[in-house]
């Protein structure tokens, strides 16, 4: 499977992970899949960088992890937003919107 060339803006990986967990806990593989499908295959996270990012979010206390069973009845580690993670998600989403709007403005006017 060919890798998509779209590069993630720096810092957006956290935002994407937080957002994908907004509707409920998911395991790592599901997070990767959700981001990929939600972006219409436009964004793909390298599997190798997903887990370090998840761990960094755990350290920050924005996520919690617990073991559960997957849809195919296998043991899997599920990640869930904490209250603080949710706050962080809103804050980062707002900032991101502002950023994108600003960039768009520049692109249109200049």
């Amino acid at each position, binding site marked *: 499977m060919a890798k998509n060339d779209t590069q993630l803006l720096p810092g957006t990986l956290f935002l994407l992970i937080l957002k994908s967990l907004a509707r409920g806990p998911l395991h790592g593989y599901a997070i990767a899949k959700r981001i990929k499908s939600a972006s219409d295959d436009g964004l793909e996270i390298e599997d*190798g960088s997903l*887990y370090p990012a998840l761990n960094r979010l755990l350290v920050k206390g924005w996520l919690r992890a617990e073991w559960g069973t997957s849809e195919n009845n296998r043991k899997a580690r599920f990640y869930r937003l904490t209250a603080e993670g949710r706050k962080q998600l809103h804050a980062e989403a707002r900032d991101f919107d502002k950023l994108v709007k600003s960039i768009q403005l520049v692109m249109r006017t200049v």
Partner: protein
Amino acid sequence: MRTFREFLNRLQFFRRRAQFDREMHEEVQFHIESRAAELEDQGVSKDEALRRARAEFGSVRLAREDSREAWQFQGLEHLLMDLRVGLRVLWRSPGFSILAILCLTLGIGANAAVFSWVEGILFRPYPAVAHQERLMALSGISRGETGITLLSWPDYLDLQRNSRLFDTFFVSKITGTTLSIGERAERTLGSIVSANYFDAIGVHPILGRGFLPGEDVGSRSHPVTVISYQLWQGRFKGDPEVIGKTQRLNGVTHTIVGVAPQGFYGTFVGWAMQFWVPASMEEIFESGGYKLEDRNARWIESYARLKAGVTAQQAQQEISAVAGRLEHDYPLTNRGRSVRLWPLWETPFNNAGTLLPTLGIMLAVVVCVLLIACANVGNLLLVRSFARRHEMSVRAALGAGRGRLLKQLLTEGLLLSLLGACGGLLVAHWCHHALVLLFPARGGVSMYLPGDIDWRVLALTSAVCLVSTLVLGVVPAIQTSKLDLAAALKTEMGGVVGGHGKSWARSGLVVVQVCLSFVLLVGMGLVIKSLDKIRSASPGFTTHRVLTTSVDLVSAGYDIQQAKTFQNELMDRVLALPGVEAAAFARLTPLSFGSYSSSPIFVDAYNVPAEEAPTVEYDEVGPGYFATMGIPLVSGREFTRADDESAASVAIVNETMAAQFWKSSNPIGERVQVKGRWMTVVGVAKDSKYESMRELPRPFFYVPRRQNFAIPAILTIRTPLTPEKMASLLGREIHALDPNLALYEVITLQEQVDRSTSAQKAAVTLLGVLGALALLLAAIGLYGVMSYAVSQSTRELGLRLALGARATDILRLVMSRGLALTLGGVGLGAAASLGLTRWLGNYLYRVSPRDPLAFAAAFVVMLLAMVAACILPAWRATRTDPMRALREG
């Protein structure tokens, strides 16, 4: 807040690292298998799906490393690594490590020990007492005089009543007494205190109570006592029913109302108190009768605690103002008098004041020793950093940043000083009560000079440790920062022995060491010489074959008449003993830590206004005192049995007094007025020492005991018998007269003199130990530098030998280099000593702080140490094999 949570999260991770690896593995496995299953659903073969899923995931190991790193304290991991490397480095060169750690152990240990003494004796002298930092001692002062007086009880009460800036005032006056419980009597120490004492200091008796308000009022009205834990355990075997029992203090029955907690030793620096009694009982312990209403009787030792936030200066102003009003209201007793506050470490009426200069000097000395130890270790590290140039270059070449290398070196320094500090604290712990060993116990009374290792000592030790780490780490770091292999190699090619090359850092350190140890040696020399002078100085009386002891008649309840009869009968029996050449009673003997009587003196020829009459001290002595003590009479006669109550009052003056009051004329037959009584001078005695071996000649006189009787008396006996033999003979005689009496210890006058110079001896011992330590360390430093220099110059030495130099030339070469270093250090040290030794002023007796003999002796010792340190390296240099040296280069 957030970072703190992160910190906690990381800590948690630290606890379950193993679990993390397992979970990570499972999680990745799940991810890959899920992906493979998905691919399989798309029709890829099972094996191919798994292969592709793995390939997509990339390096599992990298993902795991990165994830783990998210959790780690990076600094900590590096630190652990540095520590591991550091330990390995130390382990690999055990000789270096042991030497370095030993140097630091001694340096840091000496510091920690002295810190703990300084703190325990000067700053927090009273364990268990609340808010010591705000306590101050109170004493009276007189205008135009340097000495201090104590306070009178009425003045104390007025100060307390009229001051607003103090939490509390309390009295604690030391008193020696005879304690009798059942049949056994012993000499012990206690305090006469104000009734609020235990509340004021925040110490609560573990059994019974403290004193009640009002128990310090009246004359002999409240015979109650609180006893120390030690006394409770020792004499009462920890009896839980001890409250309400009685013990006799100076013969008066006191009811025990309380037991003080363990670890409370009262409030007197130097001695452990065994009991406390309220001030209403002072007559039992103090001479001079009922004094609680007498403004002229100045006898109490008191303290006050400042309110929080009040400065010593404000407090002193208020106290001075109150004292001023007292002077105005009571001109008869208080004219010219004021009151002064003292910080605890300057307390004028206990041992704090005496120990202050000793501890100050010791502090300076141990700092010197620490500096020498650090210089030594720094030198060792320098030498080693040369040896490690290769390692450092390789690490630098592999991309280690300068900061990272510096951190490594600092970690190694930290490791060394940490190990040194641990050893040092052990040393300090062993020296815990070492000070007490230097001051002899007197007659069964226990000394208490604490040196506890609490958090302050630990904090100071850590600070010392940190500083030495910086020093130790930075020295080699400087070398490393100039990491230039080619240049470094060139330096090595140059002859170190010959004096070229960049050995200045090491040589500089050695010069500093020699300099510091020279200063200590000079100090040691001065104090030793001074002690020797004190020892050989004549006290003005015979110290050999004269014994002294006493019998406590006050405690036994003797009245004056009974005491006179007893003392007369005892004297007859003593004089009849075989081996007794002479014997006499005296109220006090010289250098015995008692205080003499004193009185303003008037003489016919020396006219001064009444209030300016000079006060002179005197002793009340019996017939034959001068013969017994061996104090020569210049003219006139000794007191005899005829000088009794019915005879005319007489006195014997010393030479200084004769010269001061009667100028050139002979005082024999002249009159002198003492306490309102005229006495005729019948003799002039040679000057002697009265209170201290270091005192200057001063006026003093003697009066006959029979004409000025007081019950307490010291018995002096001239005899060739040993104290033990005399004790048993005397014991028998005393028992025959009154079986209820007990004899105090029998000691020679020499012993008494020795005890009075114990502070000097302590200073000499401590300076001696530390000076020897410093010398040893400096010698090790010199040896290290010379050995290294020789080992690094094998090529140069080989060349010289090949070109025909003889062994003696080589020997001279190496020795002259060591000599140059030593002379440099000695020169600096001598200059420093000239400026520094005057601080010893108080300890020197008839020795100039610039005594040439002490300087010369220090120089000789230093030179000998130099020779000892250099001889081995020099000898090794002569054994250089020229062929091998040249071949190996």
